[in-house]
């Protein structure tokens, strides 16, 4: 699963703001586009000097294979992503990828439930598009604080049904994503759940997966240095209490494989 990766200097094709502090970045990166699987990520250098020093991990959000382009969906959190958001088309950024082990799915048509909270939808669109092309039947649940934070709903709806829930009710239902998830699992049948989002959401998915007996795969985040499995900096705890590298054994894990802390 963790196949060929390379270090490439990629040209920015487009950068658009899709929500407050959220950007959709399109790069020309044919090698990465050709090799990437849904759930994988790249390590992007977010400076010209040493500030910041470490690269930043970003999930591959979308792959336009024929055009040799890849897309990222990211939120500005700190100085690395702020730097990135100021880059203009034509400029180049250095990236390492595709990295890690992505989502695992069969080529056979199945029923999949995608659960994305906030910026957590980032790795899910690439997955949704791949699964849709395999003619999977998909439902995507998108949760956010408020309407403007519901990201890429249109793109997901081209792959299947989309249900939106916001904390303030400004888009879709009013409530919490985990409530919507629970109801969905109660009311409909799925073969597998794919989820990404902050820790409470991942924990919820883990719990519902167990309770409803439906296997789930979740994409984790951890601070990374190397991104390729060399530094052992990014570990999470496995069920057997050993440590797994999020960048190498993950970032996507079977929900019952890992212990979620904190």
């Amino acid at each position, binding site marked *: 699963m963790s196949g060929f990766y390379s270090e490439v200097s990629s040209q920015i094709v487009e950068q658009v703001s899709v929500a407050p502090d959220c950007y959709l970045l399109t790069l020309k990166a044919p090698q990465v586009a050709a090799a990437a699987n849904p759930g994988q990520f790249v390590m992007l250098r977010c400076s010209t000097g040493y500030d910041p020093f*470490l690269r930043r991990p970003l999930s591959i959000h979308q792959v336009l294979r024929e055009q040799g382009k890849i897309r990222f969906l990211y939120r500005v959190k700190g100085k690395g992503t702020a730097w990135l958001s100021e880059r203009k088309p034509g400029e180049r950024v250095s990236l390492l990828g595709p990295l890690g082990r992505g989502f695992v799915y069969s080529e056979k048509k199945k029923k999949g439930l995608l659960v994305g909270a906030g910026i957590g939808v980032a790795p899910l669109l690439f997955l949704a598009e791949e699964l849709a092309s395999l003619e999977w039947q998909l439902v995507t649940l998108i949760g956010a604080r408020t309407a403007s934070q519901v990201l890429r709903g249109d793109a997901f709806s081209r792959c299947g049904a989309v249900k939106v829930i916001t904390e303030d009710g400004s888009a879709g239902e009013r409530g919490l994503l985990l409530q919507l998830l629970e109801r969905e699992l109660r009311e409909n049948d799925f073969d597998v759940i794919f989820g990404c989002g902050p820790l409470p959401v991942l924990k919820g998915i883990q719990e519902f997966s167990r309770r409803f007996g439906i296997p789930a795969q979740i994409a984790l985040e951890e*601070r990374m240095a*190397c991104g390729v499995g060399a530094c052992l900096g*990014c570990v999470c705890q496995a069920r057997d209490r050993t440590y797994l590298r999020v960048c190498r054994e993950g970032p996507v894990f079977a929900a019952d494989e890992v212990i979620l802390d904190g």
Partner: protein
Amino acid sequence: MVDLSVEIAGIRMKNPVMVASGTFGFGLEYAQLFDLSRLGAIVTKALTVEPWPGNPPPRIWETPAGLLNAIGLQNPGVEVFADEILPELKKFDIPVIANIAGFTKEEFAELASRLTGTGVSGLEVNISCPNVKAGGMVFGTVPELAAEVVEAVVSSTSLPVIVKLTPNVTDIVAVAKAVVEAGAHALSLINTLLGMAIDIHRKKPVLANVTGGLSGPAIRPVAVRAVWQVSQAVDVPVVGMGGICTGSDALEFILAGATAVAVGSANFYDPLSSVKVVEEIENYCIEHGVESLHELVGAAWKN
């Protein structure tokens, strides 16, 4: 043609650029990115007698021009290394130096003897890891303890023994002299500086281990100073490291007295930095009419 080859404690290297322990895994992670044999040597992640789980996460934290790490020696143990990993690494035409970390003097000896004859080219004795409770850096801060460990290692192996020193001491020269006296064939310096960071929102240390080791460009001036001091005080070769990102950085260490250098945290910044360092050193030599790298070693204090 510039002659970049160097010899450290009998280990012949085609150029002076290694990768620093713990920042390059066992090398295999990077093998598909470039031809490993373009480097002078590979230094492995620290090996312990038993498989070792390491510290709980979070283990790393970025700091200005550097990072803190508290990996805590996670590794599959010396057996798995010798039986499964080393055979893979041997496929590359490059010396492999095993970084060893015992929790006791006896464990250091055991690691040394276990690795003898396996095909590793040398040992780097890690008496400077700040991230474990027992052993680790403590050995490296007291000249007598350091010497005892080195004696135990040297008497358990026929391999070249490089001793890795910590900068977290009042007098690094005293430790250096003690371990050379005890039989070290070469020294490598520096390991990380002891540091920490606090998450002001959680009001807690950022690292689960509380303290961690600081590495990266931030510490380079401390490392160059250590190499400058130690290389003038001992007669064995010194491997310099600490924040090397470019050829110029590496040359600072060589001019300060290092016979070889290791690229560490810079692998995270740019995984190709070690090979770029080789090229940049070569270019510098050409521009400055240097025929053999040896002319440069310690030139800043020799001339």
